[in-house]
């Protein structure tokens, strides 16, 4: 069997970023949620919001820790496996990555300490400010990482000298054409992901009959939030798609599974894209609908995959299906939220067992949608690392053999398959211990809690084991 270092490096990158992205997908939203709870508590002084904030902070600390250690891996991937890309694009993308490190380090690490350990040391308003700044830190991380990614998708503001990319206009580089849409769509996705986790945990808490008051607040807050953000997310997704149509038409054609471009193109609902035959097998499609939602006109012109040479097309089936999974999950989310509002209107929300169970199952929906969406945009960028300019095949480190990368990939797989189940298990324990666990806030001692998690764990009966 031939081991291709490029393909294996792509799998490895997908593996480490696929697991890593689950953590920001959760912590970006959770940081803002905690800031909201802290704000409400600082204003109203109602202890239920303090309980909820304490509860979610425990979970935040664990997921944040996992995000940090899996995040350290990411910049090194650019060097270990994609050294030619690093040499070619380093002058443009490196400051964006460095700013991510600097600002995130500054805002998150600094104020996370106050947030986790400072409850008794600072007044509630300051504690709220710390929570806001941690949330701003997570958003600024997302800002710089997505700015980097967006430049790779829609590169502008550069000049090429000897095959290497040099900055010409930093504003253009940071705010590249796909960036505003990608940033809005991604952050909104992270918020929705977190809200579905809160919804699921709230449903579990209500169903179990302990800390019901906290559970009811979580359920309702999450539902109201999702009622705004799920539709908003669908609109943002549509705008992002139109941006892709304008700047990455080959990717859009792969998303649509559209082989033959032209006027009044159909919308492919489902089918099997066959790249060799250049058509979709067993396809259900609606005539002219594609043009309508892509160009907002029944006869709008859209390019098809056949308008691009085969060596400039993404792996169509992967992009086609991941996009449909994402959209399908989005519609499912809409249904779950709508059902919740019907039950809320009938005042049966807290008593409808099937719905509460359903909410527990939908906890993972956001994560699946994030992975599917990320797959759509990243695999859709292929065969390029810098869209239209630098090929993935020309980006990989020349010194690597297939066996080298297979070995490193297997080691990453082994380690991540240990740490992620354990991490999730640890978070589930916190959920089981519940939000109303005793709130005799952990003594700060002489400021020497042993670890963020433990300081919080000490506030639960289980932690006192």
């Amino acid at each position, binding site marked *: 069997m031939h081991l291709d270092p490029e393909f294996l490096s792509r799998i490895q990158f997908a593996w480490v970023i696929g697991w890593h992205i689950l953590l920001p997908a959760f912590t970006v939203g959770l940081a803002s949620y905690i800031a909201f709870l802290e704000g409400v508590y600082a204003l109203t002084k109602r202890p239920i919001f303090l309980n909820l904030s304490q509860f979610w902070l425990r979970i935040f600390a664990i997921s944040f820790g996992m995000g940090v250690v899996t995040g350290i891996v990411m910049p090194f991937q650019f060097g270990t496996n994609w050294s030619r890309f690093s040499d070619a694009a380093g*002058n443009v993308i490196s400051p964006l*990555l*460095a700013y991510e490190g600097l600002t995130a380090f500054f805002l998150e690490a600094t104020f996370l300490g106050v947030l986790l350990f400072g409850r008794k040391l600072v007044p509630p308003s300051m504690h709220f400010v710390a929570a806001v700044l941690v949330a701003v830190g997570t958003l600024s991380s997302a800002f710089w990482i997505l700015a980097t990614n967006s430049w790779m998708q829609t590169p502008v503001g550069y000049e090429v000298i000897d095959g290497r990319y040099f900055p010409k206009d930093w504003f253009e580089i940071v705010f590249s054409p796909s960036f505003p849409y990608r940033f809005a769509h991604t952050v909104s996705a992270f918020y929705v992901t977190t809200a579905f986790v809160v919804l699921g945990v709230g449903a579990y808490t209500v169903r179990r009959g302990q800390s019901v008051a906290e559970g009811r607040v979580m359920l309702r807050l999450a539902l109201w939030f999702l009622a705004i953000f799920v539709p908003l997310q669908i609109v943002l997704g549509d705008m992002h798609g139109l941006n892709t149509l304008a700047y990455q038409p080959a990717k859009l054609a792969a998303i649509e599974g559209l082989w033959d471009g032209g006027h009044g193109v159909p919308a492919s609902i489902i089918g099997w894209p066959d790249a060799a035959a250049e058509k979709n097998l067993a396809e259900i499609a609606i005539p002219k609908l594609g043009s309508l939602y892509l160009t907002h006109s029944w006869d709008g012109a859209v390019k098809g995959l056949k308008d691009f040479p085969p060596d400039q097309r993404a792996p169509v089936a992967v992009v086609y299906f991941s996009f449909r999974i994402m959209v399908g999950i989005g519609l499912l989310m809409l249904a779950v939220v709508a059902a919740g509002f019907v039950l809320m209107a009938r005042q049966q929300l807290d008593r409808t067992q099937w719905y509460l169970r359903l909410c527990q199952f939908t906890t993972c929906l956001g994560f699946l949608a994030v992975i599917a969406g990320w797959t759509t945009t990243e695999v859709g960028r292929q065969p390029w690392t810098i869209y239209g300019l630098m090929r993935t095949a020309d980006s990989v480190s020349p010194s690597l053999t297939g066996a080298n990368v297979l070995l490193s990939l297997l080691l990453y797989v082994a380690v991540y398959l240990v*740490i992620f189940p354990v991490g999730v298990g640890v978070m589930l324990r916190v959920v089981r211990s519940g939000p109303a666990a005793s709130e005799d806030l952990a003594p700060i001692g002489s400021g*020497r809690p042993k670890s963020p998690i433990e300081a919080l764990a000490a506030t639960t009966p289980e932690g006192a084991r």
Partner: protein
Amino acid sequence: MQALDLVPIWTTILALGVFFYVALDGFDLGVGMLYNFAPDRGARDLVMNSIAPIWDGNETWLILGSVGLLAAFPVAFAIIIPAVYFPILLMLLALIFRGLSFEFRYRDAEHRTFWDHGFAAGSALAAFAQGVVLGAFIQGFNVQGRQFVGGSFDCFTPFSVFAGVALMFGYALLGAGWLVIKTEGALQDWARALGRRCLIGTVIGIGVVSLWTPYIDPHIAARWFSWPHIVYLAPVPLITAALIWYAWQSLNDRSEYAPFLASLGLFVMSYIGIAISLWPMIVPGHFTLDQAAASPSTQAFLLIGTLFLLPVILVYTAWSYWVFRGKVRSDIGYH
């Protein structure tokens, strides 16, 4: 307009960043290695507590170091990192394991022994891997044009493996020095005893690497041993020798901060020694700092924010060490 040459500034920032990482994560990796040698469970908890509030902040310097290298000297990053593919992989996996062992040993009590071993082994492996990276870096890489073209296992040589072991001793010495500061009584005596052994290992490491390096590379030999360099550079070995003597003394008497500071001094001198050997190369034998530097626009764009944020980070770091100062005691906090 003649742009200001920012390369010296970035060289300084990067050198400081790497040194901060080595000094800060060095001692907590060292503490991690010594952890499993602690006499009993209570002692182990104290040892763990001595670094608990600060270790993750220390590790963040690694991100700044790696991204800083990419930003300031992109071609050096593109050559060095793939050349040390497996040591970097081992280091990353070890750091992941170590970091999460820290968090999981409290929350996943059934598997506590497993996470305890994960913590100690992860610390040791990360230290060893960093030493191999350093050794391979000093030896130089097989470069064509702007890319590393050697094999992924080329970096494992007797010299680099020796450097890996030497760095384990060095970090453990820093860790022992830290424990002397943070503990008292019998546990401190234990730290001192381990510190003496680590000092012996470190001295052997520094000595062998110092003699082996000029033997590998005649340019480095010429730089150190030719007249009149040998006179100008004589203070480096002399100060190092004085520090070794001071470290040994302070481990034997009652001084609390001196062992750590003397060990840190040994790291400073070794760092200076390596810098003298390699200056002005960032990829030994192929790229000087100036040749590898990022475009002036890149350097300037990043410098603006760095000059504002880096001092804040330094002040915050200093403040957090101040907050968590003093001895760790078993009657405070958890359990």
